[in-house]
């Protein structure tokens, strides 16, 4: 019934206005909402049609994406705007949406950068918690605990001993607490890093996660060379990171940063080509690119099939061990309520193993 009503509403909306509707899973004014507003403004001239934003906020930005998946995506005029947090939730929470059901219009493969207070002993970081910072928790555990053991038990115990994980902080509280020195570590996206860290004389870069590549590996960020976690790890522990803990870290950081800002439509959407083409044209326009880079920094777009390939790369990183370890660390080290989603692994593994084909096809 609900789906029927939604379909009727969508039919009415599209027939009356015939404009594009971008679904944003946050309140107006939030980070992804700002990004969507800027992209929509820049994209409109190339698309030749108006774009409206529809905000569907909710807990951890899940309800809006769920609504897109369950009802709204059947319209050819509806585009979903998502962010990296949706990727992490996809791995560890009960959500309806599934990236494998959509076509990528385009996505921005960003990096997240961790900063520290100058002169602090970062073997004992004080860091703001929450599900959005899960990859940073894994990175800290790797950097601090090294490779004396690769077992999950070792990393969980080491993390609990060394890291003060402060729950319940909003972004505003976190930034102020870092400026005041109550926290000695923080993390930001590239644009926010410029604004909040580079302007702070008491702060400096600690590490970053690197840029996701097509083969699932990560490379150093040219904006912050030499501070990729893998590089820092090898410098300190005389060997590159490896093992089950590292695999789970790669999984969660890739799902967050590899789709930090993304646009999706339902598979088979008749406007996919038009949208991709408009986005491609937009990225060739220096003014449009400058406006978007001001918000998120200088990072490349992956448009169309490149975006789909990125999703396939991410999906291939999901293994039963990595997913189980992610859930275990979340619960035992971070206190986060996470669930292991059996179907996520089975649905991914079976086609790959049985057919032996590349999911990108």
């Amino acid at each position, binding site marked *: 019934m609900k789906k029927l009503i939604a379909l009727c509403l969508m039919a009415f909306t599209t027939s009356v206005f015939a404009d594009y509707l971008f679904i944003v899973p946050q309140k107006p004014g939030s980070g992804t909402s700002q990004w969507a507003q800027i992209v929509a403004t820049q994209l409109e001239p190339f698309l030749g049609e108006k774009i409206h934003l529809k905000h569907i906020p909710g*807990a951890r930005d899940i*309800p809006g994406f769920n609504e897109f998946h369950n009802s709204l995506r059947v319209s050819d005029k509806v585009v979903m705007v998502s962010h990296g947090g949706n990727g992490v939730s996809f791995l560890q929470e009960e959500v309806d949406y599934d990236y494998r059901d959509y076509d990528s219009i385009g996505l921005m493969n960003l990096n997240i950068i961790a900063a520290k207070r100058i002169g602090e002993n970062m073997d004992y970081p004080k860091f703001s918690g929450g599900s959005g910072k899960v990859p940073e928790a894994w990175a800290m555990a790797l950097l601090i605990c090294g490779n004396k053991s690769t077992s999950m038990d070792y990393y969980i115990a080491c993390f609990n001993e060394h890291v003060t994980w402060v729950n319940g902080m909003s972004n505003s509280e976190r930034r102020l607490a870092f400026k005041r020195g*109550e926290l000695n570590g923080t993390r930001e996206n590239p644009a926010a890093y410029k604004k909040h860290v580079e302007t702070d004389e008491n702060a400096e870069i600690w590490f970053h996660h690197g840029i996701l590549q097509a083969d699932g590996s990560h490379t150093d960020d040219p904006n912050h060379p030499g501070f990729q976690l893998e590089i820092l790890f090898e410098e300190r522990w005389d060997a590159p990171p490896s093992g089950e803990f590292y695999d789970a870290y790669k999984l969660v950081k890739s799902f967050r940063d590899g789709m930090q800002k993304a646009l999706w439509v339902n598979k088979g959407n008749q406007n996919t080509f038009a949208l991709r083409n408009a986005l491609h044209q937009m990225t060739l326009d220096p003014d449009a690119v400058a406006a978007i880079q001001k918000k998120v920094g200088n990072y490349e777009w992956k448009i169309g099939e490149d975006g789909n390939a990125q999703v396939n790369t991410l999906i291939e990183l999901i293994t039963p061990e990595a997913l189980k370890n992610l859930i275990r660390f979340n619960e035992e080290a971070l206190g986060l309520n996470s669930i292991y989603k059996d179907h996520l692994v089975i649905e991914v593994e079976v086609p790959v193993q049985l057919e032996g084909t590349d999911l990108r096809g």
Partner: protein
Amino acid sequence: MILALLLGTLYGLIIGLIPAAGATTGLVVLFGFMSYFSDPYLGVIFCMAVVAASTTGDTYSGILLGIPGANSAAATMVDGHPLAKQGKATYALTAAITTSTVNGLLWGTLTFALLPWYVKLMMVFGIPEMWAFVMLALVCVGFVSNKWWIRSLIAILIGLFLGSIGTNPVTNADRWTFGWEYLGAGIQIMPMVAGLFAFPEILDGWRKGDRTTISHNTKGQTLNGIKAAWKYRWDSIRGGAIGAFIGFLPGLGGAMGDWMAYGSAVAANPKEEFGKGNIRGVIGSEGANNSQKATSMIPTVLFGIPGASFAAVLMALFMVLGFELGTPDLAYDTRFFNSLTFGFMWATVLVGILCIVFNKYISKISSWPYKYYFPILVVFITWACAQYTGGWEDYAILILCSALGVFCKAYKYSRPALLMAFILAMKVETLTIQMTTLYTIDTLMTRPIFIILILTIIAVATLSIKKNKLEYT
């Protein structure tokens, strides 16, 4: 420039007049219109005028109709509406708007003139001090509780429970949502305010088919209102200072400032009766109204950290205009700061004059029978409350909150106490988690501001328990 100021003031005033819709609602609607500003600085002036004018304008429905113009203006109606019922609507409105305007100008001047100096002050007010300050606000709930103290206590517990619905800040899991995904982000404040205060009054008015006041002689009320604002200037200044301080602290703005300012007026005048039309109650809470909007701009401009919900939306609008708050290059843009100051200050003056001149005409609404305008009120309030998702869930929550409001009013459970507990619930919990994670008793005892606040809490708690004689429910 003048046109942007006039349009912003007019639009803000209209938004302010709509019950339950405040600066945040007014700004959210503007996203689609920002591209029409050929000069982005005009957009800054327009937005700041909207903030100033809507904040002043939201006093009207609280006093005239007993319905808060915004969640931050609910405290004004506790004594303002009874004054309107006594035929003194113009008097109450003039006193309120004079106080609001003067504090807006005073704190606007201090904010914009001394902006760079606030950094050090903000740095010494850490998590323990924030926690103690929120606890102080929670203790102030005692002053807005009514004399039926067991029912007040129950109202506070209900408020705390409703405020804790949403996401558990530690486990990140849904809490008390009963499987309803919509509740994962908690109950929104707008339907809670409208449900608790607006619909019970509308239903009451509709049932009685009555007007707010029978006789309405406005003679001399405007002048008396201005005189009252001067006579009780210390209530006004104290309220302004409380509002300004709360606006300065990120995340605490909105209703908390007004209720604390109102509570302080009650506490400072123990021999007077409140809740039945005491002008000092109106002046006390209105003092905080515009001052906190002005000081909310301090963390927003300096650090790009929004001081209140309206400031977060404002920041995003400025981003669309091409101004990124909290960045160093903006600090050297004098035209930006001039536009910011010009928009806020002149809109405050303009709307103050407009309101005082037209008060006696606008306040005549209180002598009209309710049936003539209640359908319009219902439409506007419902529109304001449906700005969250626009889905059926927004309406369902509004209906549930309205049922709660009607119940509380009928059975004398303190609605102000319930609202304030609701607002503070999550803040108390998260700050407690942060403080206990980062500090020990020993480290807390080295913080003088924290210790002073704790002593104040003890004193205020003792006073508030003894003095809660309000009959307002």
